[in-house]
């Protein structure tokens, strides 16, 4: 097969390219240039592009850089800012996979005549009979199937995830034995366009008028104040300006237009259900028994999915899901689909 492999400059996609070569594919590497602003590293700094290019040279494959900066701004950064403005907590890495990697780049690969697009995600795309399955990676601790839940049959048929069959330790061993410069590179953390020095606040306050607000308890009594309602996430405990002592209190609801954060005790943080929007399916809709994962490395919880209302009903009360977060439905280790918490 002619395969285009998306190389971020990290160890996983470096080894993905090497594995595809070993399997006899005709492999070309590419790196997306997505963000021109400040970055700690993440996916697309000049240093990461240099690393990806050097690995491609070491493997003896062609490597190209694609500048999708305009698309990234429109499809990921602007919606990220808009979601915060609405008091939601978006997941930009999921949006980047949906709009950039598996859409913009996948279509570029198709236009260039490649048969498939490969990435270094820890997940497995497997064909069973006529159906493509999206399974968790072999290394459960590094599993990234959550951020790939938007892949459908058409996408999976053109996607290769070669490192999903390896543990992270095996990936690093392989990179080291090939002498790749990325072998010991730390895993990327957090959102690529948010720096650890500045954080979300620094990024958002340059793009958004942040709203100072009141913090109230369940009876509407003011118990504290926050500098920016948009930066509060449901479930958050610190930074709410609450007096110490007594029972721990958490943000349970964020109302940006009303400039109000409502707090409650641990019991108020639990919910029996979460309603979804923008639901997509790997191989058609499912309903009934599922296991539900609400963050990248969260615990899957048993639940029932009501397809008509697009509502997840947890078997036992579960932590409230911040609106904007991805909610992914599994059966055993297979992604069935997912959506966004309302």
């Amino acid at each position: 097969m002619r395969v285009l492999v998306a190389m971020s400059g990290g160890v996983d996609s470096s080894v993905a390219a090497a594995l595809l070569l070993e399997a006899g594919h005709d492999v070309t590497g590419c790196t997306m240039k997505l963000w021109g602003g400040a970055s700690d590293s993440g996916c697309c700094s000049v240093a990461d592009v240099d690393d990806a290019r050097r690995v491609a040279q070491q493997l003896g494959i062609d490597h190209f850089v694609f500048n999708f900066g305009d698309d990234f701004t429109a499809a990921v950064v602007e919606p990220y800012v808009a979601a915060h403005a609405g008091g939601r907590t978006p997941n930009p890495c999921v949006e980047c996979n949906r709009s950039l990697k598996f859409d913009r780049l996948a279509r570029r690969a198709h236009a260039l005549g490649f048969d498939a697009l490969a990435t270094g995600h820890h997940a497995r795309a497997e064909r069973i009979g006529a159906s493509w399955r999206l399974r968790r990676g072999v290394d459960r601790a590094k599993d990234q199937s959550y951020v790939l839940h938007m892949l459908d049959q058409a996408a999976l048929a053109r996607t290769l995830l070669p490192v999903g069959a390896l543990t992270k330790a095996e990936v690093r061993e392989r990179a080291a034995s090939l002498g790749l410069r990325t072998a010991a590179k730390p895993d990327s953390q957090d959102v690529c366009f948010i720096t650890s020095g500045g954080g979300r606040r620094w990024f958002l306050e340059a793009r958004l008028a942040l709203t100072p607000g009141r913090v109230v308890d369940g009876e509407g009594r003011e118990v504290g104040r926050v500098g920016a309602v948009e930066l509060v996430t449901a479930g958050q405990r610190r930074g709410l300006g609450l007096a110490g002592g007594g029972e721990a209190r958490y943000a349970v609801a964020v109302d940006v237009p009303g400039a109000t954060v409502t707090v409650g005790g641990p019991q108020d943080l639990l919910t029996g259900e979460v309603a979804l929007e923008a639901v997509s399916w790997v191989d058609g809709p499912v309903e009934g028994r599922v296991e539900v994962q609400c963050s990248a490395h969260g615990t899957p919880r048993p639940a029932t999915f009501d397809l008509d209302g697009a509502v997840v009903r947890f078997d036992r009360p579960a932590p409230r899901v911040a609106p904007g977060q991805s909610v992914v439905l599994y059966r055993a280790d297979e992604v069935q689909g997912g959506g966004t918490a309302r």
Partner: protein
Amino acid sequence: MVTYLDHAATTPMRPESVEAMLPFLGARVGNPSGGHAAARAARQAIEEGREIVAATLGAEPGEVVFTGGGTEADNLAVTGVLARHGGIPVCSAVEHHAVLHPVEALGGRVVAVHADGRVDLGALDAALDTQVGVVSLMLVNNEVGVVQPLAEAAALVAERAPGAVVHTDAVQAFPWLDVATEARPAHLVAVSAHKFGGPQGVGALVVREGVVLEPLLRGGGQERDRRSGTHNVAGIVGMAAAMAATVAQRTVTVARVGRLRDRLVDGLLSTVPGVTESGSRATKVAGTASLLIEGIESEALLVLLDQAGICATAASSCASGAMEPSHVLAAMGVPRALAYGSLRLSLGWTSTDADVERALEVIPGAVAQLRERTTLTLTP
């Protein structure tokens, strides 16, 4: 077999240049700043080179400052003049980043260009006053190949900002124009060896008698205190040899390459629908073809061309190697969506009929493939 159509990025070294350099990459030793026999011989080599460079650029030997390339020469011009005399820098919006970025960093004024890529002299007039310290206008643009009206601009500067120094970036001009004549109106002239068959990493700035500037690099005081650092002897010798060879063959090369370029552009205009030329061909140097191709992204086209053995580019590349939307095309008023379909094919002294034939054979099919298999809009 590679079809090389990126001569404006860098052009193959001329054999005269390689031959002139080889002794200095081998047995010959000597730091030109020293006093013994080996040093004196090295000094002689660079001074002979300096005389050739000066003569071909219409300058006196003492007016030539050797640099580490075109970017350093441009930076020395803009920054060096202002560091010495103060004032506001002014440049056109289509300058190479080696001029544009220093001018912007120093709080300069950037002057608009017309749709054909030539500087708007009315806008330049409006940007000039007695506060202006340096005015930089390239002789030939690197992306579209358009020749700028340097003489008119310099006359305007003399009238409106009489104290200002005029700099011209002649990096793209040298293979095609008689720079000694064309750059005469400028006080400062920058060239880069690898654009005309010399080695990479060496260039020169002409600093006309009477113009004083601060150095960027301080140290041993070489180049009359205008550029410290041990001389790149091999590079300087190679640059001089490439200059001499270029000048000797320029008339013939310009005519021959101009015909190849016209055949290439006319061929593409007649076989690929939705193609236009950016800038007017009458105002361009012989080697450059700059095209706008509707409905495709040149970033993708360049991959297909590369896979077919054709080396070309869109706009100038950035540090990561990604294609940045061209500031030159934007300044010319080309819409961003159309600028994504820009293609620069630049020919040079080694270009042949076979190069043109190969390009005409591959490009129409590659454009058709992309148009068939791609859309520009994201699916919801």
